[in-house]
């Protein structure tokens, strides 16, 4: 068999089930583009490489399967870095294939040359600079295996232009490699977990992205019901357990409901599943769940003991762990604890003022949810709107929420929504964004218009970098600086200019009706929602403070603390 490096890549992508590849062509990846044109892969032309990276992320986050994106050398690769770093922090399986200058020119500061390999070392699970086209027969399947195995993450494959053109002979096409088998819990670990659970009077279950990627939500519910424990989630765990489940407390941490943080504070056992004790979730780590034993289950052993020293550390896939545990665990009703958690929830709920008003933050989120008969895929950008969505949206299925958690990348939303719409053409995709975030990748409106994807953008427009303004108000003596946008673009006109349907809820006599019409329109639709400009996301744990010190929480004395 004979093929060029570029043809090998295109064919192996097909063999790995890749149907869409977002990206942007340039001098150093043109051989690849030529080969992909002759393949069954459909290329999605992004308008900025970061957009292309996030379109791929949108596909990967929605399906759980590894997605691919392309960029050329130099600025193409540097533009892609943010999307790769974002995938690393949120454990998203992504294979980024970049063009590189020809081998002979590497290291000469050639036109559009940058050390992509060096730049991506700290933001990838693994990366390659391919030096011979024959290596691609191993590297491409390996890249998919690494991206999708264990704790998923991004892999970069940097391919010099002459390697793309190099023709090699080989015997047969390699098959996709099996993903690594996730580590299983030992019988002893299960026995110890059972023991800790049976001793506990006030257990709490914490879930994170690992529960989503292991698709273990049902097992978590079974565990919660079996041991009579409430469930709290990190930002990235939302959706794994439906918000409507009676034991689901919603998001924990910096912007969690006061009751959620109090309940965790009172726990005598924390069962942490596929979550990594991120500071936004735990507040000051040393004062997080101070009286609790900790069972920490994660398939990345680097996470075990990184922030909190667990009583029992289990290196395992969450689903495997729960499957085993549930086979052995006897029911343990805990009526007193249930009563106590119900009491805290009734006394210290999340307050959601303005729920009826579509032009108020909570109203905007809840009315949108209300108006859609079928649960949409929900995408957010980063900032206040993101937290309002995380707090208020009634999530009902895993992978429903796509949000940049670890890196917190403004500009994530629009391209990720496009990717989600490509991966789930059966669903409506709703992007809640802010006027700061949307501008950071607004060029992808052109991509969305070209594709006609079913993306609804709900722009919570307060003419501010709202979360920055909030921090300046709360922690910098209200000395506002660089958080107000003095110039306010006409977003409706911009959206129309990109060929979108667009409307402005601020000019509606009946905003809910206008929102309903917008959501029912086919294709990309933009809704500008002018929200009050100085509303804060509450409650808020000041950065570095313990979770029970919430601004806009309620004064409270914990029992058992």
């Amino acid at each position, binding site marked *: 068999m004979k093929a060029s490096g570029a043809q090998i890549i295109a064919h192996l992508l097909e063999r790995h089930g890749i149907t869409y590849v977002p990206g942007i062509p340039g001098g150093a990846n043109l051989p690849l583009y030529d080969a992909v044109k002759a393949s069954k892969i459909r290329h999605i032309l992004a308008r900025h490489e970061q957009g292309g990276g996030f379109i791929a992320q949108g596909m990967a986050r929605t399906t759980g399967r590894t997605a691919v994106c392309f960029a050329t050398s130099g600025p193409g690769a540097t533009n892609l870095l943010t999307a790769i770093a974002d995938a690393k922090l949120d454990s998203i399986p992504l294979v980024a294939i970049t063009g590189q200058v020809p081998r002979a020119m590497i290291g000469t500061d050639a036109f559009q040359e940058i050390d992509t390999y060096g730049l991506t070392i*700290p933001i990838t699970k*693994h990366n390659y*600079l391919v030096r011979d086209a024959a290596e691609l027969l191993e590297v491409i399947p390996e890249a998919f295996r690494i991206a999708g195995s264990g704790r998923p993450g991004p892999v970069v494959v940097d391919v010099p232009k002459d390697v793309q053109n190099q023709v090699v002979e080989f015997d047969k096409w390699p098959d996709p490699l099996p993903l690594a088998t996730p580590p299983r819990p030992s019988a002893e670990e299960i026995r110890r977990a059972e023991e800790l659970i049976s001793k506990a009077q006030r257990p709490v279950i914490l879930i994170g992205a690992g529960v989503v990627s292991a698709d273990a939500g049902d097992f978590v519910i079974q565990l919660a019901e079996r041991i009579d424990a409430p469930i709290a989630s990190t930002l990235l765990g939302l959706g794994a357990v439906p918000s409507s489940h009676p034991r689901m407390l919603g998001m924990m941490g910096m912007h969690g409901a006061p009751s959620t943080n109090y309940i965790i504070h009172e726990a005598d056992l924390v069962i942490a599943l596929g979550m990594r004790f991120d500071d936004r979730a735990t507040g000051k780590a040393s004062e997080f769940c101070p009286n609790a034993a900790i069972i920490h289950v994660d398939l990345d052993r*680097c996470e075990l003991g990184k922030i909190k020293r667990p009583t029992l550390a289990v290196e395992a896939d969450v689903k495997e762990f729960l499957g085993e545990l549930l086979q052995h665990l006897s029911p343990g009703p805990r009526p007193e604890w249930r009563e106590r958690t119900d009491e805290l929830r009734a006394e210290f709920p999340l307050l959601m003022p303005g729920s009826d008003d579509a032009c108020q933050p909570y109203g905007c989120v809840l009315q949108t949810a209300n108006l859609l008969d079928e649960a949409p895929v929900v995408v957010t950008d980063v900032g206040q709107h993101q937290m309002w969505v995380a707090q208020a949206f009634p999530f009902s299925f895993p992978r429903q929420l796509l949000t940049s958690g670890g890196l917190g990348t403004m500009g994530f939303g629009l391209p990720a929504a496009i990717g989600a719409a490509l991966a789930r053409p059966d669903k409506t995709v709703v992007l809640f964004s802010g006027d700061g975030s949307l501008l950071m990748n607004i060029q992808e409106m052109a991509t969305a218009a070209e594709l006609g994807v079913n993306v609804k953008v709900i722009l919570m427009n307060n003419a501010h970098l709202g979360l920055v303004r909030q921090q300046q108000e709360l922690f910098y003596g209200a000395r506002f600086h660089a958080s107000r946008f003095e110039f306010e673009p006409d977003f409706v006109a911009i959206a129309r200019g990109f060929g979108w349907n667009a409307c402005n809820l601020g000019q509606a006599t009946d905003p809910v009706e206008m929102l309903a019409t917008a959501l029912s329109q086919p294709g990309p639709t933009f809704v500008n929602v002018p929200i009050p400009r100085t509303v804060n996301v509450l409650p808020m744990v000041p950065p570095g403070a313990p979770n029970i010190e919430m601004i806009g929480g309620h004064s409270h004395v914990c029992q058992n603390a």
Partner: protein
Amino acid sequence: MSAKTHEPITPNDQIIRDERRPVLRLVVRNHPGVMSHICGLFARRAFNVEAILCLPIEDGQRSVILLLVDEDERLEQMVRQIEKLEDVLEVTREEDGHEPFEAMARYLAS
């Protein structure tokens, strides 16, 4: 071997002979970039590597790297991070691992 061309220099014996400092022994795939993966892990955690020795082994497909590092409570986390690297095949903590560094020190001092 021809005569050495360098001037003798004075290695820091205090660090090199400090028995409390652990030595890590890594077996890695031998190709460009592996060293930056490993050093990058230490660098971005502000964790100093005091000394490095690296030699290709067997048919040259693999190398052994010896790292003289600081005793630090983060070391266990570092070792786990190193183990996660695709190109690292093995990590062990060497007991009495200072000898090669002392040999290197003698070479430089002579």
